[in-house]
């Protein structure tokens, strides 16, 4: 089949434009999952850890007593550690607990460094983990500026009480972190932590949808992100 140079160029140009347009339209239609943590609501219940308990129970996260080998997907840390530099010594927020988790960054350094793509950014914004492929090099842990990732220094099974058979455990030698409950999102349920919070302090939603409750909350209230100057684009927002 012969094609003239002109026709070929026209066809290529047209195909290129269509491909870009499809991607752009697709991007608009895709979800971009995010979460807002309302510290004031969280503060209403002192020492409440229901979100953490729900997450760790659902996902078979081991409870390892030795802090050095601890595995945690969610945890609480005072504002002056979690959002250091954004909360000064005169602020009332200093000691307020912030619930911390993987920020599922827009520009995640952990994804950039993983040598096997065992962690990657999905189209819906979730930074996913493939525990079959992870070689346990812990490069992602070195790269994460938030300390969100945990490594299985030993077999976690002895430390899992009441295993949830609907979700696998992990094995020793792999890195794990919050997955924004992608398996629950797939069946239309909210993340376990969001569902478990008695004060409804956690708001989860689609950042790409201006009408979503999350977007409206962010529009209405002053909020912060962790270490914004690093350019990671975290999608977890902290409402003072």
């Amino acid at each position, binding site marked *: 089949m012969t094609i003239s140079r002109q026709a070929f160029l026209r066809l290529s140009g047209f195909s290129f434009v269509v491909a870009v347009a499809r991607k752009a339209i697709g991007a608009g239609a895709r979800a971009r999952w995010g979460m807002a943590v309302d510290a004031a609501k969280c503060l209403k219940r002192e020492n409440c850890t229901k979100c953490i308990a729900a997450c760790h129970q659902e996902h*078979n996260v081991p409870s390892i007593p030795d802090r050095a080998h601890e595995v945690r997907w969610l945890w609480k840390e005072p504002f002056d550690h979690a959002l250091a530099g954004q909360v000064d010594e005169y602020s009332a927020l200093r000691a307020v607990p912030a619930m911390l988790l993987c920020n599922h960054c827009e520009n995640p350094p952990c994804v950039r460094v993983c040598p096997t793509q065992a962690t990657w950014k999905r189209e819906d914004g979730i930074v996913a983990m493939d*525990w079959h492929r992870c070689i346990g090099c812990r490069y992602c842990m070195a790269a994460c500026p938030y300390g969100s990732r945990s490594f299985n220094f030993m077999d976690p099974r002895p430390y899992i009480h009441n295993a949830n*058979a*609907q979700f696998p455990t992990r094995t020793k030698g792999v890195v794990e972190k919050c997955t924004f409950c992608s398996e629950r999102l*797939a069946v239309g349920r909210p993340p376990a932590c969001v569902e478990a919070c008695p004060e409804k302090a956690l708001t989860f939603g689609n950042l790409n949808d201006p009408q979503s409750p999350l977007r409206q909350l962010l529009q209405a209230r002053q909020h912060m992100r962790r270490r914004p100057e690093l350019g990671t684009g975290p999608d977890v927002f902290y409402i003072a």
Partner: protein
Amino acid sequence: MRDRGAIYCGLAVFLALATFPAWHNLEAGVTAKGPAIKLPVRAKQCVAPAEYMRTAHMNLLMGWRETVVRTGTRGFTSVDGKPYNMSLTPTCLQQCHGSKADFCDKCHTYAAVSPPCWNCHVDTPPALRSAL
């Protein structure tokens, strides 16, 4: 023939080692009987033809794994049109095959194969095992 003693010793050791599989199995009471798998009671049709599953179930499982983990989609339609959720414990075990001891282990132990799946994937809880 100064080395007669050493040679006979060596021969004896060699014969013992070479026939090790035979007399060890005799001693352990190993028979030629194959694995006795417990077929599922409720479900009659597998996600794929039995012959295919017998030879290539790992291919199917690896394919399921890639699809679920890398693309996030869990829907699978078998050859006869039935929909399944691609999931090891909830579907393969809890829906049909019971527990790994009843089904998977029977052939795997016989064939001396130990796939690492169960380092992570959780076996059916004991309470649910008899239901199948």
